[in-house]
């Protein structure tokens, strides 16, 4: 912030004057509002080991003048090109090793060096193959004001989506801070990146070293009869681009989701892809869709269990072969992580001259390799001035001799003396500080800057901004991005003379027309279907529980209510909400009360417990997050958080319990409303809706069945319960006033397809949805739903025409339970038909077998 002589750097002046206007209290207030915004949007951190803590951004950005940034970008572009040249060599001719320029340890003892990427003969790389199209560097500014590279990030550095999110949220929450400031926009970078991916796809298609082998596309595919969707359409004009993520379990899930949106590409997991005839396809509801470019955000070692980590069943078997043949472009390529070895920094100046014929434009933080005796002696002389790192492991934490006890330091030196080539040392420098908003106003704190670069086909381009990260007091500065803590937006400020350059939103280059791999991946359809089912199951459970506690809470129960409670307990047991022992046969409801409370408090047991259902809904919501609008996702998470929060208070108070049930019903209603009003009626909505209708249909059958398991004399309380559970009391009263008779009640809840809480409505909707999903001509599944509907309407007619309706109604449970099972079967057929459930992959030849026992001569 200040220059070497204590004065304010000029680019801070305007910023400080803008921000001073907020006043002291304003700072903390802004920080709070920002935190709340990140919480609401569910921007979870990429912070290792912190679970799902929300992202934090300081209201004060880090300003960098455009000229200074241009210098940085130029230096990093050179560096990226240098790293690419080294990669070409270590995965190619290996001249640098053969001539002794690089010590073998940097490559051969480097776990990120993947020998599977170093093939020759027919499996050699295609001419012009590039390893890196994306690069990031972590930088620190020393007391002299110069930026130095602390770490090179070649293996898909995280944080870029957070940088975008920081900017967006700041602009929304503190728009006044942007007033009068001219900063460069981030969006153009994503346009460049998107076009670069597009270009790679076109090159891939044009290379045409690959041709679909005979057999593919002729209906011979063994897996779930998946047809090939797009073999007829050449992908030359509309390449399929997909971002490969480890999935929702990854701490980078949020980033991957946001990135796939920014770049308008499909977000896929390994299991969504399949290799056929040497090409890579995405499994969608409409069949297999060709993927031309894979933006890899899965660890290199995990991408292909056939050639790399055999235990990685989240990879795509055959991907490496497809890539070598040119059938797909993987970016960044596997194996690029080798360049993250900290010790490489010691060779970069030499390598720059050797490979580029230039001097390195941006220095690294001074780094030495301890395999070198002179370097070792230098570090020995003043160990406290250095940080020790593993030479080839970019993710290892730094050890600071200055913070060690004498004993620990001796042990460290002994370890190094034994295998010095395993270690590197970097200067322990104090990065310059920037003001940050703390609990007591502004405090200066050291920052690390991450800058992102992408190769546009001709040159490296920087994102004009970045992600700054505040170092906390005891944090080790090793360049592994965000530990727990605070981030800062980075503003590249236009120089005053730049002001006439026109609106900052202007894209830098024309955007290529693109069509993304749009059809719904089978996995997403699967998850949406189950989300629909579980939201409904949660709602149904809440209605059951509410009806039960309404009766239990009254204390002295009347005989009529005992009948109802017994019926309810059967439904609760059937729904796995309480264990079977809690079923009420006679007497009071103590056992039931206990079981119910336990179920609400317990996690995971019984299987249908409310807490368990809430967890499942939360997990499914996360897995389809990329298909939900921000508003929807936010509504989901806010409501789920509320339910969890209120559930904590549930002790023995029926009232507290009721509050949770109300939360749940409100949540379910808002999901229904949002789905109806905010989701396009495409594949995603169809499956969410289908899941919901199936679950409700099944629940109605089962609950009405259990309610009617009575002697005809007690039919009246049973009918009242049926109306209550189906939320149809009011409708019934308006139609029939207060007289309860079996036929009218059953007509309303089972046969009337105008009642959205009734069975007929669900079955009709299921038929309609299945027609839409399968398209015209294939009515096999929807026919089943219609058959069920016809049958149930006929049954209700029989009751209406029976001489004693009560007797006829009490015969229904058996049929209703059978129909519940029929609906379950239908649901099963739907999942099998559309979601192409793949059998588990297993690896051969790397485990117990193949032990050549080699007999003695």
């Amino acid at each position: 912030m200040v220059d070497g002589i204590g004065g304010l750097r000029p680019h801070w002046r305007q910023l400080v004057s803008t921000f001073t206007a907020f006043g002291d209290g304003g700072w903390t207030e802004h920080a709070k509002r920002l935190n709340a915004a990140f919480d609401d949007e569910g921007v979870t951190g990429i912070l290792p080991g912190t679970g799902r803590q929300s992202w934090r951004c300081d209201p004060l950005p880090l300003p960098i003048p455009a000229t200074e940034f241009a210098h940085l970008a130029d230096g990093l572009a050179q560096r990226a090109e240098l790293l690419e040249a080294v990669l070409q060599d270590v995965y190619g001719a290996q001249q640098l090793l053969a001539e002794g320029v690089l010590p073998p340890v940097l490559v051969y003892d480097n776990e990120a060096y993947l020998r599977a990427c170093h093939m020759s003969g027919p499996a050699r790389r295609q001419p012009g193959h590039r390893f890196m199209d994306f690069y990031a560097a972590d930088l620190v500014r020393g007391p002299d004001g110069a930026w130095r590279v602390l770490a090179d990030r070649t293996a898909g550095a995280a944080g870029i989506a957070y940088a975008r999110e920081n900017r967006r949220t700041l602009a929304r929450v503190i728009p006044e801070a942007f007033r009068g400031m001219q900063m460069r926009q981030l969006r153009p970078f994503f346009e460049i990146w998107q076009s670069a991916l597009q270009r790679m796809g076109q090159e891939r298609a044009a290379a045409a070293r690959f041709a679909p082998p005979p057999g593919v596309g002729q209906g011979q595919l063994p897996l779930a009869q998946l047809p090939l969707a797009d073999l007829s359409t050449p992908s030359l004009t509309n390449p399929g681009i997909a971002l490969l993520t480890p999935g929702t379990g990854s701490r980078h899930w949020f980033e991957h989701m946001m990135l796939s949106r920014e770049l308008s590409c499909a977000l896929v997991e390994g299991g969504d892809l399949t290799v056929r005839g040497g090409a890579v396809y995405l499994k969608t509801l409409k069949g297999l869709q060709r993927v031309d470019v894979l933006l890899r955000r899965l660890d290199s070692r995990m991408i292909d269990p056939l050639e790399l980590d055999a235990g990685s069943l989240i990879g795509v078997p055959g991907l490496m072969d497809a890539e070598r043949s040119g059938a797909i472009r993987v970016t960044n390529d596997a194996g690029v992580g080798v360049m993250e070895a900290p010790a490489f920094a010691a060779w970069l100046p030499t390598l720059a001259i050797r490979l580029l014929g230039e001097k390195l434009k941006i220095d690294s933080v001074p780094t030495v390799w301890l395999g070198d005796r002179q370097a070792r002696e230098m570090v020995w002389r003043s160990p406290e001035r250095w940080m020790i790192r593993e030479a080839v492991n970019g993710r290892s934490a730094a050890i600071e001799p200055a913070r060690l006890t004498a004993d620990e330091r001796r042990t460290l030196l002994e370890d190094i003396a034994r295998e010095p080539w395993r270690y590197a040392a970097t200067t322990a420098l104090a990065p310059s500080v920037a003001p940050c908003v703390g609990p007591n106003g502004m405090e200066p704190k050291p920052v690390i800057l991450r800058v992102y670069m992408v190769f546009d086909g001709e040159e490296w381009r920087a994102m004009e901004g970045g992600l700054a990260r505040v170092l906390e007091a005891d944090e080790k500065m090793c360049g592994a991005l965000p530990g727990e803590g605070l981030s800062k937006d980075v503003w590249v400020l236009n120089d005053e003379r730049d002001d006439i350059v026109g609106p900052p939103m202007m894209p830098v280059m024309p955007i290529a027309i693109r069509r993304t791999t749009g059809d719904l991946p089978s996995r997403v359809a699967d998850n949406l279907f189950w989300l629909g089912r579980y939201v409904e199951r949660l709602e149904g459970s809440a209605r059951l529980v509410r009806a039960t506690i309404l009766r239990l809470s009254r204390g002295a129960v009347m005989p009529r209510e005992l009948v109802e409670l017994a019926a309810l307990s059967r439904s609760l047991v059937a729904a796995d909400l309480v264990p079977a022992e809690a079923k009420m046969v006679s007497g009071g409801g103590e056992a039931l009360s206990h079981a119910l409370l336990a179920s609400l408090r317990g996690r995971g047991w019984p299987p249908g417990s409310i807490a368990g259902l809430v967890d499942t809904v939360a997990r499914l919501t996360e897995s389809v997050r990329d298909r939900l609008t921000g508003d929807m996702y936010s509504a989901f998470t806010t409501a789920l958080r509320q339910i969890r929060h209120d559930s904590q208070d549930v002790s023995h108070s029926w009232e507290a319990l009721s509050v949770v049930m109300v939360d749940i019903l409100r949540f379910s209603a808002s999901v229904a409303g949002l789905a109806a009003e905010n989701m396009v009626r495409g594949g995603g909505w169809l499956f969410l809706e289908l899941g919901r209708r199936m679950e409700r249909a099944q629940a109605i059958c089962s609950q009405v069945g259990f309610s009617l398991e009575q002697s005809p004399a007690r039919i009246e309380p049973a009918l009242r319960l049926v109306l209550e559970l189906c939320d149809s009391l009011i409708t019934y009263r308006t139609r029939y006033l207060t007289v309860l008779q079996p036929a009218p009640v059953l007509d309303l809840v089972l046969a009337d397809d105008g009642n959205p809480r009734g069975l007929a409505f669900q079955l009709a909707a299921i038929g309609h949805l299945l027609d839409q999903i399968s398209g015209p001509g294939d009515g096999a599944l929807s026919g089943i739903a219609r058959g069920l509907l016809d049958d149930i309407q006929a049954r209700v007619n029989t009751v209406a025409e029976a001489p004693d309706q009560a007797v006829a109604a009490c015969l229904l449970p058996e049929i209703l339970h059978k129909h519940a099972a029929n609906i379950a079967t239908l649901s099963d057929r739907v999942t099998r038909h559309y979601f192409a459930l793949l059998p588990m992959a297993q690896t051969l030849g790397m485990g117990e077998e193949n032990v050549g026992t080699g007999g003695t001569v």
Partner: protein
Amino acid sequence: MRFQVEHKTTFTYAEAVDLACHMVHLLPRALPHQTVISRAIVAEPTPARQSQGIDHFGNEVNWLFLDQAHPHFTITLHAEVEVAFPAPPDPDSTPPWEQVATAREGGPAQWQAAEFTFASPMVAADRDVAVYVAKSFPPGRPILVGLIDLLARIRTDFTFQAGVTTIATPVGRVMAQRAGVCQDFTHLMISGLRSLGLPARYVSGYIRTRPPPGQVRRRGADQSHAWVGCWLGPAFGWVDVDPTNNLIVSDEHVVLGWGRDYGDLSPVRGVILGGGAHRLDVSVDLLAV
């Protein structure tokens, strides 16, 4: 010596496998002292796609992709090979082992050997193994003298016993139980040599076996074999030694290829979808002609 090799691997699955891919290291490597006269790999059922290449270590690799449901998969190598590895150098003429142990530093003469001085996924460094192996290498001893001593010690101290280890058994366990099969002795010896900084690599192949006295030779009774490639410095290069049989490889071994450890050249590696449980049958025939 000329050999005919037939190496047949069959996977039989409990349920049909829908989709399978295999990476195969089965082709004998052409070497200055190993002439490959003929060789062919036959897979059944016929793969929908095949590709080939040369791996990082110079071994030939085949990839096979099957996309039709199949209840079993068989892959067979047929080859005819002539081997005549030269006699090893005079052990006393080989350099002191400490000199060979500078290989890790790399440079024009030894950068390729350096790769085999580092621990690898299936051959970790182990303190007990390091201590055991170091006893054969007192200061200044010529490298091959040390290796010959070590071979004899392994033969005496370890029992050849099938079934007490798997391919995943760590060398430390083999050291403790003093028993195992050829892969275990090979991995153990490699681990110990690397601890001293000596380059050592895993060689995969076959060895000629003879029936017990008075019995006829049974077809398919031979097995895959593994031994250690040792580097004697730039002047002498690599020499293969067989710790299971306490001998220096001459003309009764056929080389398939080499790598850092078994993981680099598993003969038939694969990933299948479906299949349930599977059974593996391997038969090897090495016939001197």
